[in-house]
């Protein structure tokens, strides 16, 4: 009897994450001076500023995204979505791509919304099309593009066409070849309804959970983008104007590693006026659909198996669609 009591008392208590967090914060506060010195080298300082800038800039859009996601989960029954979307996958992909026009955010907002759509029973092909279309074809992004290219308004149409085509092609490719088991089960699982509470409670709880899970990956993407922003030499851009194929490829790669917000990217490429319009269009079409920040968020939300297949294919499809849109709308390389 006595031995048993001692054993119970001695059972090692597991450290909780709350205690770890408190310890971490106290340590950081105690060693704040050391931390400041560590970040006193110019490139680390630049990197940390860019990191905070990317996180801060994206937060309002992420919050918008999780609120929409929560609202869909709480107030839009799966049956309503099914009635709204055509039964055939290929037609649903078209409707979902055009629906992207209505979400005036950047890519951080569309990931949680696309996941919620899947979880509410929308065909993954349609959700994927929405995921790619929303950050690229919404009015805010198109207006920004028009303002950035005052001399060539056809860029707006070319961007719209290239991005919409990318979303449609990816949606149809998914409908034809995609497999649901590439997406991790937890992304499709409906959230457990707590205590049969009100719809508002479900709304707040879904938004909170999505914020916690997407936020971490947003930070991971921000870290990667900030590191690359500091490490990749800008000399890459010199002399690209002369070789078109190289120009297209390098601009596509830059779009992936710079991970600019889709509302700002037009201003950045507009300044690279030595390049023809076509490589710059490729940058604008690739950036919103595949970049390091987005890959981190997709891998976190839908699983690694999904991101490993999805990101490279999207990259190729986006380049092809952008070049096609460029040739058709801009009438050549320009």
């Amino acid at each position, binding site marked *: 009897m006595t031995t048993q009591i001692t054993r119970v008392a001695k059972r090692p208590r597991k450290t*909780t*994450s*709350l205690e*770890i*967090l408190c310890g*971490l914060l106290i340590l*950081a*506060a105690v060693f*704040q001076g050391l*931390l400041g010195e560590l*970040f006193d080298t*110019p*490139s680390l*300082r*630049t990197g*940390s*500023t*860019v*990191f*905070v*800038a990317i996180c*801060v*800039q994206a*937060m*309002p859009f*992420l*919050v918008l995204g999780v*609120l929409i996601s929560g609202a869909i989960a709480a107030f839009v029954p799966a049956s309503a979505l099914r009635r709204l979307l055509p039964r055939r996958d290929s037609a649903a992909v078209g409707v979902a791509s055009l629906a992207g026009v209505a979400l005036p955010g950047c890519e951080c907002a569309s990931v949680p919304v696309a996941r919620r759509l899947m979880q509410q029973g929308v065909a993954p092909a349609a959700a994927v099309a929405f995921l790619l279309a929303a950050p690229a074809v919404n009015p805010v992004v198109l207006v920004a593009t028009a303002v950035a290219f005052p001399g060539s308004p056809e860029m707006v149409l070319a961007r719209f066409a290239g991005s919409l085509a990318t979303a449609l092609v990816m949606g149809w490719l998914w409908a034809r070849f995609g497999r649901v088991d590439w997406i991790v089960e*937890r992304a499709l699982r409906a959230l457990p309804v*707590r*205590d049969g*509470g009100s719809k508002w*409670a479900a709304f707040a*709880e879904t938004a*909170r959970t999505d*914020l*916690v*899970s997407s*936020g*971490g*990956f947003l*930070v991971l993407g921000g*870290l990667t983008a*900030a590191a690359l*922003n*500091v490490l990749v030499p*800008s*000399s890459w851009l*010199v002399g690209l104007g002369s070789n078109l194929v190289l120009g297209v490829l390098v601009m596509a790669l830059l779009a992936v590693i710079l*991970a*600019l*917000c889709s509302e*700002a*990217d037009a*201003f*950045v490429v507009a300044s*690279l*006026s*030595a390049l023809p319009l076509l490589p710059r269009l490729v940058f604008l079409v690739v950036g919103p659909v595949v970049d390091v920040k987005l890959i981190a968020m997709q891998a*976190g939300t839908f699983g690694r198996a999904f991101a490993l297949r999805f990101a490279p294919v999207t990259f190729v499809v986006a380049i092809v669609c952008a070049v096609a849109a460029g040739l058709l709308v801009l009438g050549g390389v320009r």
Partner: protein
Amino acid sequence: MRRETQNVLLVLLGGALCKLVLSGAHTRYVKPSMGPWLLTAGALIVLLAGIAIVRDIVTSHPVDDGHEHHHDSRSTWLLVLPVLAVFLIAPPALGADSVQRAQPREPVPKANFAPLPPGRVLPMTMSDFVTRSAYDASNSLASRSVRLAGFAVRQGGDTYLARLVITCCAADAMPLKVRLVSPGLRGLRSNDWVEVTGRLVPGSADARTNFSPDLRVGSIHRIGEPSDPYEH
């Protein structure tokens, strides 16, 4: 990660966003007009966490049954990083280091600009000055005295006045440089903020100088970092 820990982290994150806006430090990272959106986002994050905390207390459910199961929740720890960065490191606005990484500017055709307003000394933004010096066919800057504000950059024996232009956030910053021509610049160090009055050296902004003009300095004096360190 436990549910309570997530909520505490969210409160810290939302608080960090609000603190940035209320202290005005957000202009180091984003456009000033983002302020209200950041404040709203921060408040909503705190609110979502607050609702969860209150509901957990009221229903007094062992909501997470104690174990830390979600295997995807390790990434949530990353949310600590922006919180620590904002509260403890508080990275400064981009400065000389970003200017030195800058890529070369590209030539564009010259155009006619709107005439400049009259006045003895004309206060100008760096972007207006640099653009006009290189691309203005009507030479509106000829024999005009201008006043510019920016930070100093020492590079290869020369001293430049520089400013960064951002459109969305500091990740898309583009630098503007003006080379200062004056005998009295010895005491100036990189990242010192100054206000400079002077005149454009005609024809100095061309492909040879990477389209950054020279300014013959009339007077120069130190200023504090402006509340908005960037141009837009």
